[in-house]
Structure formats: C-alpha cells, structure tokens
C-alpha cells in the first residue's frame, strides 16, 4: 500500500509538449510511473516519449482511464488546466506551476472540494509513492520504498530530508508535497489521516516552515495518532516580517513563529528535529530501531 497514488495509477500530463512537460514526462517514465496520456491544446495527435497527446482532458478520458493528472502549464493558464482536470472527473490533480495568482488558487481549490478531487499544490514538487509511482519533479534516485510517510510544504528541503532518510536505510511509503503557496488544495491533516490508515506507513515526517498556522492545526490531529511523528520546521533564524521565497514563509504579527510551531508539535507528542539531518535518528528512536 501507499497513499493517494500507487503502481496502478494512470497519469495524464497537462502541457506535455512544453519544455518542462516533456522533460519530466521522461523522468517520470524512467521512475516507472504509468503515464498514459498528455494534453496540449492544438497539438492532439502528437507523441511525446511514446505517449499520445490529446487536445483536451475529456478527449484523453475518452481513450484512457485517467486516475491522476499533473499540470506543467504556465501560471496564467494554470487555473484553466486544473479546472479542466477536475471537471473531467480526475481524482488527483498535481499542480507543479509556481507563481499562480492566489485568487485563481481559491477558485481551483473550491471547485476541487465540490467535485471531491485531491489537489496537491500549486507550487508543489509533487508526490512519490516510492518504488511505485512518481508524479511531479523530484530527482528519481533518492526515493526508495520503505516505512516512512513524508508530508511537506517545501520541495528541495524534502529532497534533503528524504536523501538523509534513504542514506540511513529508511525508505518511504509516500512523500507528499502540499505546495508552498498560501492557498493550496490539501492540508497536513488530510495527509496525516491517510498515513494513519495506511498499513505500509509506520512513522511520519512532517516538514513545515514558519508562517501560517498549518503546523499548529496539524498538532491537534497528531495527538490522536497511533503512529510516531517527527517534525522539522524551517525558518528558525528568519527575521519577522520578511518574505522568504514561499508565500507561506512569512511571520505576521507574532503568529506562525518557529517557537509556537515547535511547542505545538511537542505538546502533541511529536519529536522535533532542530536540523534536517537529525530526522532519521529521531525516526529510528521512535520506532525502537
């Protein structure tokens, strides 16, 4: 098992004929992802890496079973692309694009909620059920199968921590990127609930960052979990009021501080790593390894 995606997930790539779309189609295929179709309006009939390209998501759905889609469409067209996938009944929509207007994000997320679709992102690296299926842009070689579920807001920091886990002999069940923007489709609690129910997952790593209150809210659920949770919060040294790249990474009026998040997680029974490379040790400690 794993969560959200597995070895049977059929994937559609939106914006497949673009530079990013083509490059990552190849990377995902190399990882073993079942990419069955792509879209690129006006370029239907093309073939990319042996995969057929269609003009619309509906057209792709007429020819294939589509379980998940990934959006590599520029920011101005991202809302349209995500809505198209959701409207066609695609159950999992991974939006990699960064710089999407926040009002567009609100509309996408609202429509997904109405149609019961899972949206990861915008501004996410994607999702990997290690050894089974990768949707998104992470480097292939660090993701190996194992017992640790990972959920994160940030991309490269996740690669860093996943790299550390793998180097310590700890593979991952599923690694989920929620996205770095202020409005994203999925919350920590949504993902934690799935990990709690997933038989493959024995422990969970939550990678957060300063700003917002997502980690504090997640802590309420962590209290009720049977599986151990290790947290890491980036941005301890960030000065208040400065934006640090991610729309989410900003401390406003004393809320969303590093200290507040660490206290909330600790009170919920999670262990919090001070630095990224301490995560594997804490996982082993909590699993009694």
């Amino acid at each position, binding site marked *: 098992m794993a969560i959200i995606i597995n070895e049977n997930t059929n994937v559609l790539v939106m914006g497949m004929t673009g530079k990013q779309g083509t490059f990552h189609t190849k990377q995902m295929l190399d990882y073993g992802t079942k990419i069955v179709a792509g879209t690129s309006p006006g370029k239907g009939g093309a073939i990319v890496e042996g995969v057929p390209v269609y003009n619309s998501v509906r057209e792709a759905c007429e020819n294939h079973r589509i379980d998940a889609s990934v959006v590599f469409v520029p920011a101005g067209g991202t809302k349209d692309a995500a809505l198209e996938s959701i409207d066609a009944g695609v159950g999992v929509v991974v939006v990699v694009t960064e710089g999407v207007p926040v009002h567009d994000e*609100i509309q996408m997320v609202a429509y997904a909620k109405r149609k019961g679709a899972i949206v990861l992102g915008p501004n996410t690296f994607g999702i990997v059920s290690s050894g089974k299926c990768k949707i998104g*842009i992470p480097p292939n070689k660090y993701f190996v199968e194992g017992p640790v579920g990972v959920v994160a807001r940030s991309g490269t920091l996740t690669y860093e921590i996943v790299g550390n886990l793998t180097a310590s002999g700890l593979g991952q069940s599923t690694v989920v990127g929620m996205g770095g923007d202020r409005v994203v489709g999925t919350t920590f609690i949504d993902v934690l609930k799935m990990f709690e129910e997933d038989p493959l997952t024995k422990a969970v790593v939550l990678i957060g960052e300063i700003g917002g209150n997502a980690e504090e809210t997640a802590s309420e659920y962590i209290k009720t979990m049977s599986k151990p949770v290790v947290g890491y919060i980036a941005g301890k040294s960030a000065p208040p009021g400065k934006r640090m790249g991610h729309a989410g990474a900003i401390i406003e009026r004393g809320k969303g501080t590093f200290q507040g998040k660490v206290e909330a997680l600790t009170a919920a029974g999670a262990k919090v790593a001070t630095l*990224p490379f301490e995560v594997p040790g804490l996982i082993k400690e909590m699993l009694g390894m």
Partner: protein
Amino acid sequence: MFEYMGKEIFAKFGLPVPQGRMITDPAEAATVAAEIGKPAVIKSQVLSGKRGKAGGIKFADTPEQAAAAAKEIFGMTIQGLPVERLLVEEKLKIDKELYMSITIDGAAKMPVLIASAHGGMDIEEVDEEFIIKQHIDPELGMQPFIARDVVRRMGIPLSGPHGKELVKIVQTLYKIFIQKDAELVEINPLVFSDDKVIAADSKVTIDDDALFRQKDLPYVEERSATEKAAKDLGLSFVDLEGNIAVMANGAGITMGTLDTLQYYGGAAANFLDCGGGTGREATAKALELLIAKNPKSMIINIFGGITRCDQVALAFKDINESVGFNCPVVIRLVGTNQDEGRAILASIGIEAFDFMAEAAEKAVKLAAANV
C-alpha cells in the same frame, strides 16, 4: 501601494473618499487647499503605518497653513522612507471611526471580511468580541444578504443612512478585492461624517503573481536594489543582517541553510533562493549579488535535481576568472552531474562537501577567522 493610489481605485468603483489629490511639489498644496475650499489635511505618502505618530499628517484651516504644513512634511523621513508625495484632502468631520478589510485566509482557503464598529489607530487592541469575521465562499461571492448581516453584526441599524451606505461599501470593497487581484483591501478608519460614510484611509496590496493581468494598476517597488536585481533574474533575494552570504536552490532548503548556520553560531547576510534548474549564466549573476554583499564567507548549498551541478561549477569558474571572489567560499554540491561539477571546482581549488551540516560549520569558522 500608496494611500492615494488605493483611494483612486476606491473612487473609480464609486466608494466614497474625501475630496482632494496627490501632489509631488509642496508649493501646490495651497492651490489644492483653495480648490477644496474647506479646512484640509496634508498626509505624507509613504509605505508605512505610524505616519500620524511620526508627524507626517498635519491639518490646515487656510491655504497658507496648508502650504506651510506641506513644506514641513515634504522631505521628512518616516521609518527610513523619504516623503516625496503628499495627499492634500478635505478635513473630514468625524463622528465615528470604523474598520473594514478583506484579505485571504490561507487556512480556510477563502477570502475573509473583517469589520468592526471600533476602528481607528488602535484597531489591533480592540477586543475580539467587537471584531466581526465573515468568510466569503468563493462560489457564492458577496451576496447582498451577507453584506446586510455583516452590518447588522457591527451593530449599525440597517434602516438608517449609515447602514444602507455600509451595505453598499461592503459589496464594493469585495468587488475591488476580486477584480484587482488584491491580497488585502483595508479601510481604517472608515468614518461616519454626518449622514455620509467615507473611506478616510486606504491600504491596498495586489498579488505580485497577478500583475501580468493587472497592467493598468500603478506598481510601487518595495524591494531594495539588490532584491530587485535578483527578482529580475528570476531569483528570490532578501537582505539580512549577518556576514555569511548564502545561496541555495529552493526556499525551504535556503531557510534550512540559514538555520544550520545559526546553529553553528553564524549569521546569514542574505537569503538567496536560486530555484530549480538555474543555469550557468544565472548562477554567475547570483554569485555576483553575493559578492556585492562583501561577506566574510560564502556558502552555496545545491541539492541538484533539475539543477545540474556542472553548470553551477562552471559559473564558479566564470566568476573566479572575471571578478574573482572576495571571501572564502564553501560549497555543498550533490545531485545531477555531481562528479563533473566537482572536477571543475577542483580545477580552481574549491572543495565540495557532501553534507549541508559540515559545509555550514566550515562557512561559520571561515567567517569568524576572516576579520
């Protein structure tokens, strides 16, 4: 965005604002005050709150007084910002100050309207029970019934002139928020002046990511020169107070690098996220930004997925041959084409580390030794 720009948007949408206009020459203040024909207020236009407390807002009963006040305020510095524009407008008769804003609640994933019948300078200290929060379902939008209920909850009678006007203002404010891709529209204070309700101030923040479709809006640069140069290169740069220059690929890992430096007793001079897939040329330009900070040491932390290590290393070679480095350099370089990259670095005498922690520790030591 300056107060007067926000008010110009308000006026275009029919939201009542005081009579007046912005000037860039203090000598015009008397003319504008005469046009108004009433006592005036002269307000410095800077991107900072606390203008009143800093002496950046003055009242004038006559055009002569307006000219004197304008002369006094013009050229002041408020919280480090020079006053280069003034807003001269009618002094309102203020019977009551209220507060109203719309912003985005990331946790709820929808807009939220915040209103209070107790507005003004001390809004942040107003008791929670007097603050009304109303989330707006994006599929519903701001329906009239929602606006009416907000006004009722503010304790303002719907039957009176103020109540009727407020219901309109709530709806107009939401229209501006949506149509202008705003992250924040705020009126504080919103004032009762006899039977009228007028926006005495404005604060409007537009989503940077939506500027491509909001081309008619005035844009105000709020970044430092270095931050702006980085933005133009597609990089994310923030000036900080320490002496170790930092570059990494990704916001999270850059923050992680800052935290690791702090753990070893160092302090970052900046935050520079060069993103994924940055090539040789952009990396070289990013390195120039770091050199310009005159740091005591420099740490580069690359976990290359899309980013190719050889391209990063070639950028180092380019800089080494052109401007040269002005401090010791530490690099952590792993990922795609790692071996090629490290061979290039070795040819110019730079050793690459495998782990972030050891690189950070070394950068802190080098900065401490470089006095």
